[in-house]
Structures are given as structure tokens and as C-alpha cells.
């Protein structure tokens, strides 16, 4: 709900990767295999999947509920619905968050009716009726609010010793997570299962205001937030990733509880929910509890998977956002989704360009004092559908966007024309392995990655298998993919600068 970075959520998955190497770090494979043996999975009769990793280093456990729906699934005109739902999933259930649900329900229904009537009356220009309706709306809203136990759901979690309670919405997915002391496993089972079997989307209109504030903070009053929004619209028009995760202001204002309920009914089905549990638990016990608690979900066939056909780009595009700010420069190149056989190559290209102080763009731009920093993300804003390799940099004092762009072009061209050296290639492979190794020691990190890989690639094992794909990448692969990718007809340029510069 209140996550930092929520808007942009780049699913970089901590530089995936694993072992099987001949060079440095080749002996980390046994560790990875040992970890893999601690992981088990099961699927309930209703289709909900669980992945459990036993890790007994501390008496704590981390949970992740991964719902396979993100902003990409929203209908045009209803942007922001997935994120709105995520906020409302903290509002409680028929039994949590309310003094008396029987008394509350008719008021919530009445508010929905009034909201529709106000919209109709406004459209018809019936000023007097609007005023009347608004008055009744305000009274009903106050009556409903009086029955609410604000934030009781979060309070129960915190009082029981839960930490890190939060959620994020990205273009691809919605994630709910926190950690408990290990003795509270069953409490998570009870709270999380009820959260999505008997949810009540109360305080809808109050939360609408909160989300509008969130949008003002992340987008409207943030130069980089504005650039990202404009950049995606330009780079991915008529594509679900071209719309902002938080939603457009007008859409947020006009969404209704029925819209949220629709999204919930369509996509929060057991077959689209994958749960990760990592920590000091017994996998058998987890399964028994999960069957009892989450077995209560009705099996329901989910929505068909979305097929995205973005209109082909034929020529370079660009967008400039003028705000009183120092300059930012962005380049995005359209690329296929993560099932593409070259997925690992895109990741390698990103590492070669900006992974560390010896990377090519760091040397050419930062070390040469043309840019203060530079980063490349191999997939943005998601990777379930075709997306962008995104590059962004902040100019150094006295330097121009044009100077940065020229050097970027020359470095990208070098990737196309010269094979990368074996040393460079080995280095990024080693870094990928080490990066996964470090993640293995984090309950939260693993609780996040396992369900994501399961949902996106069909198996959590791909988290480890991906290392093989990375290991197999050759200099010729890099050159070939660079030649496909870095073409003018794939490119969108974004510039952020003050109007007078």
C-alpha cells in the first residue's frame, strides 16, 4: 500500500543468476543445491500454489502473497484499479475493521448509489440535485465511518509482532507481504486467508483522496515521476505498459467500488495466487494449515491470460518534459517479454553497460564527468509482456543531454560492432552468481523471488536454472542481440529539463 518505489517497480529481481561456473565462485553450486533441497511446493485443490523454503537460522518467517495481476490488466479508463485494490486490501473483512458489518453494509451500498447519481446529475448539469445528493453522501459517509475500526487489520499484525507489513503494485503483479516471529505462523494463515475470502472494500472514498495524494507525490510533483509517465506513453502507446501504474488522476477519481470488485472477482482467483513462505517453519505443517485455511477459497477458473500485441514501432520517437529541474536523459528500446530465448542476453547487456565502476557506460559517462550517474534496466516497466530496455542518466554540471546521448550512442554501437572480451563476460556472470548467493540468505528476498518465478516462468526452479542460461551467453550472442535491439526504429528518447535550458 505505501511502498516506496511502488510506481516504478522495476522487476529487476536482484540480478538473477546462479552458478555452474568455471571461474571465480564456481564452488558456490553446492550451496545453491543445498538451498534448493530446502524448498518444496504444493498446490491446493482449488489451484492455489504454495512454495515453502525452510530456513532455520532465526525463529522468524516471511510471507509473500503474489497475485498475478498488475496495472497491465486494467481497462483503458480504469487505470489505477489494481493499485486501488491493493490499498483497499488493508481495510479489513466482514469481521475485521468494523464495529458491525450488518449495519455498515447498507451504508456502503448507498454510498455507491449516491456516487453514481452524483456523477449522472453533474453530467446533466442539475446543480441543485447535485448539492442535495452531496449532502446525503456526506451524511452517509460519516455514518459509515463511525462504524469503521480504522486500520484494524494492520494493527492486529503489528501487535502480534509483525514487521514490514506492506504491499506493492507493479505493471505485472500485486504483492502483499510481512514477517512474523515463527510461532505466529497460524495467525498469518488466519489473517491472510480471510483477507481475500471475505474482504470489505470500506473507506473507498477516503482512500481515493489518499491515492490522489500519492499520485501528486510520486508523479505530479516529481520531475522524474512526470518524465517516466510521459516516456512510457510515448514509448509504448496502445500497450498496457504505456499507462501509469498509479493511474491517471481522472481515472482514479471516477473509479467505483464495483470496478474494484470486478477486478477482484476476475483476477484474485486461487489459480492466480502464489504464496511464498520462507523461514523457520515445517513444510508439512505449512501444508496442513494451508489446506485448512486457504482450502476455503472456491475454485474458480481465472481470467484468460492477456495477449499483448503492441503496434510495431517503425521510427524513433522522443518526448521532452519541461520542469524546473536539472536535466535527465532516457533511452528506451523495445524488447520482447521474458520468455524470449535471449532474455538472459538482455540482462547481460544491462550489466555490461552499467554494472559497476568498470562497466562501459560508467567509464565513458560518469568517470569522464559527463553524467553524475547512469543506469540500465533490462526490463521496464515489467517483463511479462513486451517491454523496454531502459537507460537513464543525470547530466553532470555544465554538461548537456546531447553530449551524454552522443557517448551513449557510441558505446551502444561498440557493443554492436565489437565482440565483448572473455574477461568482461566472465565478470558479469560471476556477479550474477554472487548476487543470487547473497539473496539466498534473506527470508524476505526469497519469499519474494520464489512465487514471482513460479508465476511468471511456470516454476520457481527457473530462479536457479536462469544461471545456466546466463552461463551459456557468448560474446556472439551479445553482439547479435545488441544489433537487433539498438536500432533507431526501437528507440524512444526522453528528456527532462527546465524550459529555458
Amino acid at each position, binding site marked *: 500500500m*505505501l511502498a*516506496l*518505489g511502488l510506481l*516504478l517497480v*522495476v522487476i529487476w529481481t536482484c540480478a538473477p543468476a546462479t552458478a555452474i561456473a568455471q571461474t*571465480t565462485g564456481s564452488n*558456490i553450486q553446492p*550451496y545453491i543445491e543445498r538451498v534448493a533441497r530446502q524448498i518444496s511446493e504444493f498446490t491446493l485443490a482449488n489451484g492455489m500454489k504454495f512454495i515453502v523454503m525452510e530456513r532455520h537460522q*532465526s*525463529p*522468524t518467517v516471511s510471507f509473500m502473497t503474489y497475485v498475478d495481476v498488475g496495472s497491465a490488466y486494467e481497462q483503458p479508463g480504469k487505470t489505477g484499479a489494481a493499485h486501488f485494490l491493493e490499498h483497499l486490501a488493508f481495510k479489513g473483512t466482514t*469481521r*475485521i475493521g468494523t464495529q458491525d458489518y450488518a449495519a455498515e453494509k447498507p451504508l456502503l451500498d448507498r454510498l455507491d448509489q449516491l456516487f453514481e447519481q452524483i456523477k449522472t446529475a453533474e453530467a446533466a448539469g442539475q446543480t441543485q440535485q447535485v448539492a442535495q445528493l452531496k449532502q446525503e453522501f456526506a451524511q452517509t459517509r460519516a455514518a459509515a*465511518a463511525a462504524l469503521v475500526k*480504522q*486500520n*484494524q487489520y494492520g*494493527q*492486529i*499484525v*503489528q501487535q502480534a*509482532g509483525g514487521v514490514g507489513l*506492506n504491499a506493492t503494485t507493479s505493471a505485472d503483479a500485486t504483492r502483499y507481504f510481512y514477517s512474523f516471529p*515463527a*510461532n505466529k505462523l*497460524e495467525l498469518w494463515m*488466519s489473517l491472510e486467508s480471510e483477507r481475500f475470502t471475505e474482504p470489505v472494500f470500506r473507506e473507498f472514498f*477516503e*482512500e481515493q483522496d*489518499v491515492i*490522489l*495524494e*500519492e499520485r*501528486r507525490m510520486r508523479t*505530479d*510533483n*516529481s520531475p522524474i515521476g512526470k518524465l517516466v509517465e510521459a516516456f512510457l506513453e510515448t514509448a509504448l502507446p496502445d500497450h498496457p505498459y504505456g499507462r501509469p501504474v498509479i493511474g491517471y488522476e481522472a481515472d482514479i477519481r471516477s473509479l467505483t467500488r464495483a470496478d474494484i470488485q470486478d477486478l477482484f472477482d476476475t483476477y484474485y482467483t486461487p489459480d492466480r495466487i502464489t504464496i511464498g513462505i520462507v523461514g523457520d517453519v*515445517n513444510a508439512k*505443517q505449512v501444508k*496442513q*494449515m494451508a489446506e*485448512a*485455511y486457504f482450502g476455503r477459497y472456491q475454485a474458480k477458473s481465472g481470467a484468460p491470460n492477456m495477449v499483448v500485441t503492441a503496434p510495431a514501432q517503425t521510427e524513433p520517437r522522443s518526448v521532452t518534459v519541461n520542469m524546473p*529541474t*536539472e536535466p535527465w536523459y532516457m533511452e528506451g528500446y523495445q524488447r520482447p517479454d521474458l520468455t524470449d530465448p535471449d532474455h538472459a542476453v538482455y540482462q547481460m547487456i544491462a550489466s555490461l553497460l552499467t554494472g*559497476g*565502476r568498470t562497466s562501459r557506460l560508467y567509464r565513458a559517462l560518469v568517470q569522464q*564527468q559527463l553524467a553524475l550517474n547512469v543506469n540500465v534496466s533490462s526490463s521496464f516497466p515489467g517483463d511479462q509482456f513486451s517491454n523496454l530496455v531502459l537507460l*537513464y542518466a543525470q547530466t553532470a*554540471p555544465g554538461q548537456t543531454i546531447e553530449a551524454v546521448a552522443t557517448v551513449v550512442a557510441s558505446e551502444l554501437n561498440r557493443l554492436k560492432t565489437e565482440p565483448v572480451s572473455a574477461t568482461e563476460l*566472465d565478470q558479469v556472470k*560471476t*556477479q550474477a552468481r554472487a548476487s543470487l*548467493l*547473497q539473496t539466498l*540468505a*534473506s527470508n524476505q*528476498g526469497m519469499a*519474494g*523471488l520464489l512465487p514471482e518465478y513460479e508465476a511468471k516462468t511456470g516454476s520457481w526452479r527457473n530462479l536457479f536454472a536462469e544461471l545456466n542460461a546466463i552461463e551459456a551467453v557468448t560474446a556472439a550472442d551479445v553482439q547479435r542481440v545488441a544489433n537487433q535491439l539498438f536500432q533507431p526504429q526501437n528507440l524512444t528518447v526522453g528528456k527532462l529539463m527546465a524550459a529555458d535550458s
Partner: protein
Amino acid sequence: MARIHCWRQGQPQKWLRYSVMAILMSLLIVIGFGRAPALAVTPRHYTELQFPPAPEVKIPPYTRFELSNGLKVYLVEDHELPLVSGVATVYTGDRLEPADKVGLASIVGQVMRIGGTTQHPAEVMNQFLEQRAASIEIGINTTAGSGGFSALTEDAEEVMGLFAEVLRQPAFPEEWLEFSKNQWRGSIARRNDSPDGIASREFQKLIYGADSPYARTVEYTTLDNISRTDVVNFYRQYFYPNNMQLGILGDFDTQAMRALIEDLFGDWQPTTSPVGRDLWKSLPSVQQAKTGGVFLVDQPQLSQSTVQLGHLGGKLDHPDNAALSIMNEVLNGLGGRLVNEVRSRQGLAYSVYALWAPQFDYPGVFVAGGQTRSDATVPLIQATLTELEKIRTAPITEAELARAKDSVLNAFIFNFATPFQTLSRVMRYDYYGYPQDFIFQYQKRLEATTVADVQRVAQTYLQPEKLVTLVVGNASAIKPPLSDLTPDAKVTKIDVSIPNVKS
């Protein structure tokens, strides 16, 4: 959200970094908890559940010793993964740098690392580390210098050798000094690009004073005053074995590590000048600079105001801190009074908070605030003040007290979830001269805190007459205006324009 971290974010470039999942350090000690699975499970509502006993806090064993040159060493073995990492903490800090050379300490830290050593120039060192997926970083903040490294076990010895070189023989080449200054110039130029960054910076100045070591900022002129000689001298003043702690964590054998540390650091000569906390004796005492008033940074392009209001706070070792942290809990977090009232009920803000935020060895701040649309600025401030007044003048309920205590005490185990937490806590307490059982003393005080204690501390430490209110927003769109907030209707504008770079 979580209780605290929405309230001070700063630099715009953080926007992507936050989205990458945090990677924690590795854990120690494999404890087997073979628990017999229950036979049948009946789903129950949370009110009907019974739990196994809460897990006990277990602290991983650590070794602490001192070399004959005064270097304090802390070792924690952890064999879960083939990784070794380390931290060095040095008694220094940017609060010790001269007022006309603000930025010096930070530059020393940065150039120690990026400038390479006398034996290993920058380029060679970068290659060496990155080919091994290893890292070495150095930084100096307000109250400490800190270095860190991480490496795969198989490379640990070599990487530690480099780490020792970075600490002992940094080269400080001119070109990297210039690089570091230029990075700072870039950061000065961009410091007004985020409303939250402006608010945090200017609030500190209002509380501590613009020239205070706790609020002053790096300027183009202070950068121009910094020479290589200054950098070398600052380094030479503080980087000695008897002014430093070294902690190593991970996959090693303690005896062998001890020998390696002796080998790498044993011949490093100590200084006879004052070291450790004695260095801080010359620091000026801290007083609140502006006591009261409403201040505005006018940013006409904004549609949302960022508000920070507060006054000088206290130190972490004050006994009343336990009761003050209960007050924090009652006000903040999901279910806290501010979030319930200002966010959830009134829909005024995405983030709203009020925190007593103490520091280890100098007075911290009490700071409240949030972000809201321009026309709701005054209502947001008033709603926040109302909650502060309430907690000062009326006792909290027993239920609130219980919730606050439970939240902290039931989550206490998370202070001990990784060996890294233990290592850094042990070192931090030593660094600031806190007793090693400080966290358990705090736990006891927390358990003993009563409703009356909370009201007493709220009354004593929240001082409405000293509140400074700062708004970063669009003056012409703030209606009702900020002048409504103050009896004399006086709002002081703060000019944040950046002095031009000299050409």
C-alpha cells in the same frame, strides 16, 4: 509505509534504488527446530488462536579483542554461505570538518576508495574487485567514518588485503579529488529538484542553525576551499588503528582470521593524539536555532505541499526514551492516531507522521509532517497539531498502551534475526560508549512503562511553543494561507536559490 521510512527520502535518484529488494547479510548458527506437525487443523478466526511460546532471543557468539596498536576487532563466524564481509568504523565525521570546508569529510571517504591506493591504482582495484564480485566502500557521515567490504570466501583474504590498503595507504590522486568535487557540484545543482529534499534540509537548518555541524550544507564555495593537502591532513588526523573498530562476519575460522588481521593491521602505528570519543569534546553544544515561527519555501510549480514541523529532541540513552517510543507507536504506524485520523479518516495525506527521533550522542529532533494538496496545507497542519495537543493533554488508553508495547516487544526478536545485526549493534554501542545490554535495558523500561509515564513525557518533551513549521509548496495556491496558523500572521519566506557556479 511502515512506521518511519516515508518521512525522509531526499535525493531524486533514489527512485529506482528503492524498488530493488533489499539484500540482507547472511545468517549464522544453524539451529534445528524439529517441530512435530499438528494432526488436524481447523481454520479459526484470529481471536480464537493459541500460539506456541514466543521464540527466545539467541545471540550468536562473537569474539572481541584488541591488537597491541589499539585496533578493536569483533569477529562473528557464519557458515551458512561462502561469503565474508567486514566493517571498519573510524572516529571521525563531517561534524569535525572546518566550517569553510564543508564537504571535506565526505570527499575524504569517497576518494579513499575511488582514488585507489599507492600499490593499486583505481583502475586496477576496480578490475580486481569486480572480477570477483567483491566490493569495498568507504564513507564518512555526520558522526562516523565507515568502511565495508564483501567477498566470496575464496577471495576473502585478497580482498581484505586490499581493504587494509585502502584504509592505510590511500593515494588521493588529484584527478579523483576533482571527480569527487564535481559529483558534489552536481548534487548541489540538483538539491532543489525534490520538495522532500528541500524540506528535510531546510528543517534541519531551522532547528540546528544554518551553520551548525548538524545542518550546514556543502556549497560551491566550500568545495573550492578544499585542497589535496586538506584531504590528506584530514585523513591523517583520524585514520589510526587506535581510533578504529574492525568487525568481520561470515565464513571463516576465528583463529585463522585473527592471524590474518594481525598480519594486515598489526604493524600499523597508532597515534598519540587524542582519539575516540575525546575527539568530540570540542564540538559546540546544541541549541535550537529558531524557536517558533512559520516558514515557507515558495515553489510555484507544485500542487502539493510538503510539511515538516517540530523542535529539538533528545538523546537515545535518556531513560525517558522508552516512554517516548511508546508515544511514537501510539501516534504512528497502521492504526496509529495520525494515520487513522489524518490519512484514513480525513484523506489528507499519503504519508503523515510525528516522531521523537533521538540520536546517539547529540540531541535529535521531534519532527511531524506529511504531504498534502496545496489547499489542504493548513488543515493538515491543524489536524497534526490537534493530535499532538491530544496526546499532551489527555492520557492514552490502556488498550493503546498495550498495543504499543506488544508491537515492540513481540517484534523484539527481529532485532536479532541476523548475525550482522548483532555485530553492528555490539560495535555501535562500543563506538558511542553505550552499555552492551542497552537494548535489554530499553526492553525492561518499555515493559514497565505506564499510561502516566507516556503522558508525563508527552507533556514534558512536546513543546508547542517551540514548534517550528516549515512548508515547501506553492504559496499562491495555499488557501487558507499559512498566516492563519500564527497569531501575528507572520510567515517567513526562505530563499533556497542556489548561488551561481563561478565561471
